[in-house]
């Protein structure tokens, strides 16, 4: 799985595909204060990107992928 859900933290890894968006949104609805760990994530499908933009969660660990980090910084601040 590209997203592993822990108690109050969603851990993203590799390529987060389009299928994940719905579950991600649902998870945030249940855990409105949920944080995300992007450390090992290299890409997030646009659908999940817009979920993140709607929620604006706290990023506990930024992505190691510099380009993704740049994009997300402009989006989630």
């Amino acid at each position, binding site marked *: 799985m590209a997203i592993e859900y822990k108690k109050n933290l969603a851990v993203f890894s590799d390529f987060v595909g*389009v299928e994940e*968006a*719905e579950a*991600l*949104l649902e998870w*945030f*609805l249940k855990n409105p204060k949920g944080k995300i760990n992007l450390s090992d994530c290299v*890409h*997030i*499908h*646009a*659908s*999940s*990107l*817009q*979920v993140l*933009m*709607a*929620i604006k969660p706290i990023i506990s660990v930024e992505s190691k992928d510099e*380009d*993704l980090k*740049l*994009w997300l910084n*402009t*989006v989630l601040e």
Partner: protein
Amino acid sequence: MNNLLEQFLSEGRDFLQGIAEKLMQLENNPNSTPLMTELFRFVHTLKGNSGLFDFPEMTRVLHASEDLMDAVRNGRVNYSQELADQLLEAMDFVGILMDEIEVTEKIGTKHAIPAAELAKALRALLGNPESETAVIEDISPKNNAVISWADLPSLKLPESIAEKLYRYAIDGDAVFWLEYKPESDSFFKGEDPFFLMRQVRDTLWRKVVFNNVAQTLEEMDAYSCQLAFQLLTIAPEEELDDLLRYVPDETKRIEIPALAFVKPQGNEDDHPIDVEFINNALILLDVGDFDALTHAINTMLELSASELWSSSALRWVLRLIESEPDNKIAQQALLESLQTLIAPDWSEIAQTIPSTNTTTNSSTSVNSQVPDDSLLLGFHEVMNTQREILSLSPHLSGAWSEGRLKAVAATLLGCYRAVNHDYESETDAALQLALAENSPAPLLALLESSLADISKLSETPKLEQAELVAESAVQDANFGRRAEDVTAVAGRRSEDATAVTPNKTLKVDQEKVDRLMNLIGEMVVAKNALPYLANRAETVFGVRELAREIKSQYAVINRVAEEMQDTIMQVRMMPVSFIFQRFPRMVRDISRKLGKEVELVLEGESTEADKNIVEALSDPLIHIVRNSLDHGLESPEIRRTAGKNAMGKLLIRASQESDRVLIEIIDDGKGIDPDVIKNKAYEKGLIDEATLERISDQDAVNLVFAAGFSTADVISDLSGRGVGMDVVRSAVEKVNGTVGIESVVGKGTRLYLSLPLSMAVTNVIIIESDGQIFGVPMDLVVETVRVKRSQIRTIKQKQTTVLRGRIVPLLSLNDLLARNVEPLTNEDDEFATLIVRVHGEHVGILVDNFRETVDIILKPMTGILGGMSGYSGAALLGDGSVLIVLNPRELI
């Protein structure tokens, strides 16, 4: 021989066989679509396969065959014996090539000429032998036009990034603005717009906009793409085209010129940069002493806080000097912008032909002169108040305490000092006398006499000032907020005369004002529910007392709501000078280019209207002014021969007429010849011959607004100004405005736009039709009448009636809305008829019944409904129901 080639040959022979069979079957059954489709597929696949190898002769013949079969399949070419022969011959040739390939794995050069001839013969049957290359299409997005300043996005970049981009652009690296708005269903096409954008190389700035249509997170649809991507990149053009080739309609790419990045930003300065410094800098620039200029700017920068707007502007001047030392116009514009704190409009400057001695016309004296004038105003105000206090109760013994008299005296003394008049001894004497008499009379006497003295003294300078201000308003109109700034300063000073108050101006985000506007809109609607409630209290529950109380509370809420609405509207008000300010420069540039002499006069710049209205005015006005300069005003020679002043006059005037703004554009040019317009309109088929005979001169002139009147040849050979006037009209109508024209041949033309002051509240009449209610904007309604069935005549299958001696066509609203129901009549067999004015004509709309008129907040339709032009929007009524508002202009 490799496997692929072997496979190709074996499959290819099967296809050749299949093609021959199908052709034979077609001989007996020439109209069979399945046969035709099969045949095409064989040829098509074979051609596709041949492309895998380097067999140009074979591909060429097969390509021509495929095109021919495609034409036959689509019915563009008829199947014939000759065609079949030609195709069979071509396939035989392909077979020969295959045999040769089987042996030598290549095609001998001797086949090149026969291949070309065969292809030519096949294409001859198509009817266009030369089109061999035409089928190869350009797949790059075509909608990316060349630079146009008007299309440029307004960029808000950090200065460091803007600087970087500017340097790239100056160094010749094209900087592209890329905007990508995927369709909302793009995920269901397997697209990942974010991934696509991440593949753009050399992105220097990026932004993602998420436009969530859902009200709540629960309602959000993660799979409806609501994103828009924007970025700036220096990636090569071809690479971008290639990357975006699947989504050309959803992307916009614009090359950004270097100057567009030159945009000072920062905090507004409390104390604008000294005019002296700016003038000095301009002189240094003029003489080309860059060293001194750089030095002066650096010194200034050291003295100023770096986050100020002016500091940013100065840094840009330095960068321009370094990168574009010859672009004096840009450097000058930036320096001049320091006075106004408004970034230069590069689109206008970019058009300017560089000229060496453009002098500045900054008037240094204005600031020091004007405050005196306003100070006097403040002085008079305070004096008037004191007079009122003194006249309160002249002989009420005991009421005049010592303290009150002393206070008035102190105030008067302060006022005299403020206007530099020494009345110290007089005031003191008057106070003593007043105290002794226990009467305000002595002070009152002093007040009156001093007022007379002071206004006499100040009369002379006041006159001078008025002239000065007027002059500077005309000359410096392109310096934007000058006039307002001056009043702002003045206003503050006059306050200072009484008490020290801080500047009370507040900068508010427009979004907040809009939100406030929406809220008050809802409030107005919500309060409208109260009368309903009162009515129910009385009729349903029978508590008349409560009904009355609700009504009286409603009156209070109504007043407050209306006042709130008024106030918010005023916040949104904006002077038309906002758009007028660009005209001096524009008129100068265009008239110079055209070799015309034009004097531009602007009047009523302080007239205010809603921000949206003012902004909507901008484009139409530019259009009209350009037209006046282009086609209205003559060249100096022609004007002289016509006995006119060589210098033409263009007057742009704004004024307020009750709840509308009137903008007039008046020139003393050659006017519009109605005969020329008539003939042109007739040629274009806009009017028929009968109309041509009858049409009045004024109606003929009005034809310039007709859609389809304006075309290129009109510009070239006609005195008229039909250039895009229909565009102007529709732009103005979009904000509920009207436009008109008057012209006298040889004397000039007057164009006028009348616009609402604000667009927030719409007054509509509610009508019933077929059991539903609709709103119709009152500004279109001429009157409501009841037409007897017997008064309706049918002329040319159209229902009409005669109203005040005028034939009015009648349309049934049910028909217009495609409801197949007769309109209802009342007991007297009369139709309720709404007379509306549409495109200058009166038309009657038959409805079932009229109801009241209401003020509503009109919300435009969105989504699929947004495309239905017959409706202008919807609004909430007081009882919570939705009212659909019709747009008769489009409906009829």
